[in-house]
């Protein structure tokens, strides 16, 4: 949300977000509006509440197009049909006249993707795009996103809590805990050699497939974001805790090329 400047006005945002070399946090409002939806777009978890229930699918996709391009209604409508074809909606021409409630969850998410891709963005932020969908449909939507990535040279930031989705659909992964990145690595390194205790614990808590064995749960609960501990935010639940962890906040540092971690312990043997 902060990346796109979508957070409420009361939120304080610091730091830099560079997009193609330009810090977009300091962009004036109108330039940000031009960028948002045009070069960076977003899809959300719940496709029902992100679509307008009283407008047809065709009207909503056309609206996006006409907001960014000088386009006639007719051209926008034709382009909308192509977009629905692109996201593999069967019978696209007929679906343009449909209202969101007439579509299934999977089809609605396809429509959301069509809208997000309407202006051929360079970056797509997908916030839990399949969490609200069923497993068989989830696989279809993620497969579609990968196809589109390859067809249109799109970059995707996929936000998910599902490690299975990461394992099968991502190239690189960053693990967040309480507002900070704990570990960043290629997907292969992350699953084979996680270095942050939180990442290790996450991987261990995946149901392994063999039934009835006990799951390894992470003890304790996530601290409140309004009341964070002083040092490492995972310290209270960490199996490799030592006193220094509650003193200083560990910074994200590289342990091998392309693999960074924010844990003091990870550098003990180095």
């Amino acid at each position, binding site marked *: 949300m902060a990346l796109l400047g979508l957070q409420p006005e009361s939120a304080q945002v610091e730091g830099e977000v560079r997009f193609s070399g330009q810090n977009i946090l300091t962009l004036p409002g109108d330039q940000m509006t031009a960028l948002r939806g045009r070069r960076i777009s977003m899809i959300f978890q719940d496709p029902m509440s992100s679509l307008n229930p009283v407008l047809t699918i065709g009207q909503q996709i056309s609206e996006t197009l006409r907001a960014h391009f000088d386009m006639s209604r007719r051209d926008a409508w034709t382009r909308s049909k192509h977009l629905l074809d692109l996201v593999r909606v069967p019978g696209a021409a007929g679906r343009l006249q449909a209202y969101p409630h007439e579509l299934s969850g999977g089809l609605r998410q396809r429509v959301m993707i069509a809208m997000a891709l309407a202006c051929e963005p360079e970056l797509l932020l997908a916030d839990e795009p399949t969490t609200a969908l069923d497993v068989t449909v989830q696989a279809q939507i993620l497969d579609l996103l990968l196809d589109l990535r390859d067809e249109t040279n799109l970059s995707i930031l996929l936000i998910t*809590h599902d490690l299975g989705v990461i394992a099968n659909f991502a190239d690189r992964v960053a693990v967040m805990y309480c507002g900070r990145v704990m570990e960043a690595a290629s997907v292969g390194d992350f699953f084979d050699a996680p270095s942050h205790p939180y990442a290790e614990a996450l991987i261990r808590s995946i149901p392994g497939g063999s039934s009835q064995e006990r799951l390894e749960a992470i003890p304790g609960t996530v601290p409140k974001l309004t009341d964070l501990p002083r040092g490492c935010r995972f310290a209270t639940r960490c199996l490799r805790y030592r006193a220094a962890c509650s003193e200083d906040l560990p910074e994200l540092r590289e342990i091998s090329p392309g693999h960074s971690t924010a844990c003091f312990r990870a550098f003990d043997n180095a």
Partner: protein
Amino acid sequence: MHRSDPNDVPLMTVHALKKHFPVGRQLFSKEPKAWLRAVDGVDLQIHRGRTLGLVGESGCGKSTLGRLLIRLLEPTSGAIKLDGEEISNVSARKLMGLRKRFQMVFQDPMGSLDPRMKIGESVAEPMYLNGIGNRREKVAEMLEAVSLSPEIANRFPHEFSGGQRQRICIARALTLEPDLIVADEPVAALDVSVQAQIVNLFQDIQQKMGLGYVFISHDLGVVRHIADDVAVMYLGKIVEQGSVKEVLDAPAHPYTRALVSAILPPRPTGVRFRPPVSGDLPSPINIPKGCRFASRCPMAKDLCREEEPVLRRVANGQHAACHFT
């Protein structure tokens, strides 16, 4: 351990259970325009000390079935027997007494706790309704059973995390020492790191108290972990059932096979994952003739579009409703 033999008299037996909801109304008539066949002829057995996993996609009727089992909904037709005694048509008064024996745990632990009631009051409510005394001690005992401190009885739900609230809901469901708990997606709303804690808790309680569970979930990974038996639902019907091993390791119905292969491998495989089936669930208002899965089935033949298959035995305890298994 209380794990009983599956050949014992089942705790609950369900036969030809149906629930149809009216949709819309015709002009000048009391007849509805159409019927939504949420549950459309289900047979099940639930055993003491065992867990039945009920899986399927959203809209397949699994939550409706869960609610029918504990009589939160009136069935349209069919039989539900508890220890051999018919309960699908008992009086409201008798039902009140029966309710002690089956409890439910819901998906959203915030929505199922009254925000203005203290934890202790919420947990004691079932005992209060049933006129059972000694509530304070029992509340403390139940909170301890779910690994919470008895001191939290004086606090309010908003002070707790999702996982803690789900523990409170479980404590409340346990106060009357039920024989059966129907848990409808109890971990779906929780963080992954907390899901494992709650799944372990369900297993510990079952070992201690020997109760039967119906565990409704769309997550086959969790079901494989917690359940002994599985029933797979598709558009209001059970298409396959049997032990976890039989059904998930050697699925006989093409739909179960699709569900199992839609589980993402938990670790990178180096191969691009491909979706097993296309399309999604048809509407339960216009259920197609013949096999309900035929429109998405990779091996559908003419027969499938004509004749609806019935559940047939394919292995030891495994049954599937497919013409071609």
